């Protein structure tokens, strides 16, 4: 009987596959990415390397010596004390303590301060609190500390915001009205994000992390790129990271452009040049995990997409790795075997600059 290796499904379930089956899954995953993104599949050597990583006997694996990359953590300030039934561990601690634990105990190379709502819009009424928290953190920490939040354009639509919900308008086939609503929302979102970061920059933040960009589709991406452009003009030295929400910019509007490029339907390697053009310093590409496929299929697909993004990007690419992205299963606390294998593959095959 052929040796079987313990892998996972995209939903975290254990599966046992032979080497031949793993190779088959890798070939199918890379072919799927190549087909969708119109990019190259992984080479034969890369497929063998990926299979080797997946079949390594250790529970946790690591990158080869000399290939270490910077690791940052987004909302980690809140994950220590957060206990909302999500990924928080419920240990009472302030955000300062959360940041410092990441710096001094968990080995984060950079870190961010975030608000519990984790979207820019709700930060407006508590800006003084956020500025104070940033100042206190900066006084106590050494590693670069950014301010991070989601653009989250959905908050500008009813029932949470002033503009009519494009989803409702679309359902009534009011396409033009829906598009106008998205354009207005994007404009307000840009204005808010710039206003918030002007104040946090004055309070000493080392930079900004636009996290989960384009979650509300192409309008969200459009508003964020314009915010990046405005901030870069005002603050030439500000460190700006743009991390994406998913692998594909969903076309909610369908006709928005940046720098002459239609934003809807862009894959990671097509997003990267626009993020650079807007003036960001780092790009955070994302590839979604399909929960019905194996980790071999998902990781091959993710590595193929990210490798193509790294190749064309003029910016360092810090790939998003976590629950349901980057070839990692969709689990609250992703299993270490899957996380470390996916991370190793991203560094050693896709060539990412950070995680």
């Amino acid at each position, binding site marked *: 009987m052929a040796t079987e290796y313990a892998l996972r499904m995209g939903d975290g379930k254990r599966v046992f596959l032979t080497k031949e089956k793993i190779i088959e899954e890798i070939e199918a995953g890379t072919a799927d990415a190549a087909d969708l993104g119109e990019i190259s599949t992984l080479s034969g050597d890369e497929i063998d390397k990926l299979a080797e990583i997946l079949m390594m006997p250790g529970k946790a694996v690591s990158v080869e010596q000399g290939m270490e990359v910077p690791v940052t953590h987004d909302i980690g300030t809140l994950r220590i004390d957060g206990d909302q039934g999500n990924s928080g561990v419920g240990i009472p601690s302030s955000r300062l303590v959360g940041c410092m634990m990441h710096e001094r105990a968990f080995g984060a190379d950079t870190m961010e301060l975030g608000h519990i709502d984790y979207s820019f819009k709700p930060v407006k009424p508590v800006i003084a609190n956020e500025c104070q928290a940033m100042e206190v953190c900066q006084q106590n920490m050494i590693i670069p500390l950014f301010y991070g939040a989601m653009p989250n354009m959905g908050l500008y639509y009813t029932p949470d915001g002033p503009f009519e919900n494009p989803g409702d308008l679309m359902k009534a086939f009011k396409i033009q009205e829906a598009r106008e609503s998205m354009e207005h929302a994007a404009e307000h979102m840009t204005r808010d994000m710039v206003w918030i970061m002007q104040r946090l920059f004055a309070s000493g933040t080392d930079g900004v992390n636009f996290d989960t960009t384009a979650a509300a589709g192409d309008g969200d991406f459009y508003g964020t790129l314009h915010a990046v452009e405005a901030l870069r003009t005002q603050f030439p030295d500000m460190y700006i990271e743009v991390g994406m929400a998913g692998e594909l910019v*969903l076309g909610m509007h369908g006709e928005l452009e940046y720098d002459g490029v239609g934003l809807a*339907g862009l894959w990671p390697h097509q997003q990267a040049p626009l993020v650079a053009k807007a003036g960001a310093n780092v790009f955070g590409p994302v590839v979604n995990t399909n929960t019905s496929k194996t980790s071999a299929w998902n990781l091959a697909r993710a590595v193929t997409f990210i490798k193509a993004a790294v190749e064309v990007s003029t910016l360092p690419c810090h790939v998003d790795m976590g629950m349901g992205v980057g070839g990692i299963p969709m689990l609250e606390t992703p299993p270490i075997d899957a996380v470390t294998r996916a991370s190793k593959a991203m560094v050693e095959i896709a060539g990412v600059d950070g995680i």
Partner: protein
Amino acid sequence: MASKEELIQELSDAIISCKKDAVLAAVEKAKEVMEPAEIIEKGLAAGMNEVGVLFERGKLFLPHVMMAADAMGAGVAVLEADLPEGSESKKLGVIVNGTVEGDVHDIGKSIVSTMLQSAGFEVHDIGRDVPLRNFIEKAKEVKANMIGLSALMTTTLPGQKEIIALLKEEGMRENVKVMVGGAPATQAWAEKIGADCYAENASEAVAKAKELLL
């Protein structure tokens, strides 16, 4: 005169073009040689399936999906008068679809509703942040064969489980299938809570609804 295959292709292409005028013209042309039910199934619905595939591949966008659905609706309306008596109301099944309480995410669920409707199901989209009990009441009211439950957050996912429990309490579970979806939902979650199926995306939702209801 165009062959049946050419007419079917023309109907499908017209839907993919998302232009109502083109769809209506293609329907008028096809009516001369094809039965209304065949025009809907082989031409319009097939075109709509392709629209779903193109949306998932990032080649068509949400406004296009909505315009195609609108055009398909117009085409079906023209044909309904010519359908044999009693068949105009024939639907593949009745589905109540919504996003569970506490969760305001709407877009994915709405796309699923549109695609199910275009595939021939009678869909009652009851919106987002829907109180759990409302799913039961609506299912009773419209005599639903299936309930679709969307949740985009780990914190609202348990609502899907609670609705299945409510269906059991009401003695409705055997007659109503349950489909779950949304980013944190998985096949394993569907099995754990006793849902009938999990769908990864809109086209899979249509395929699985057909599997369960036809």
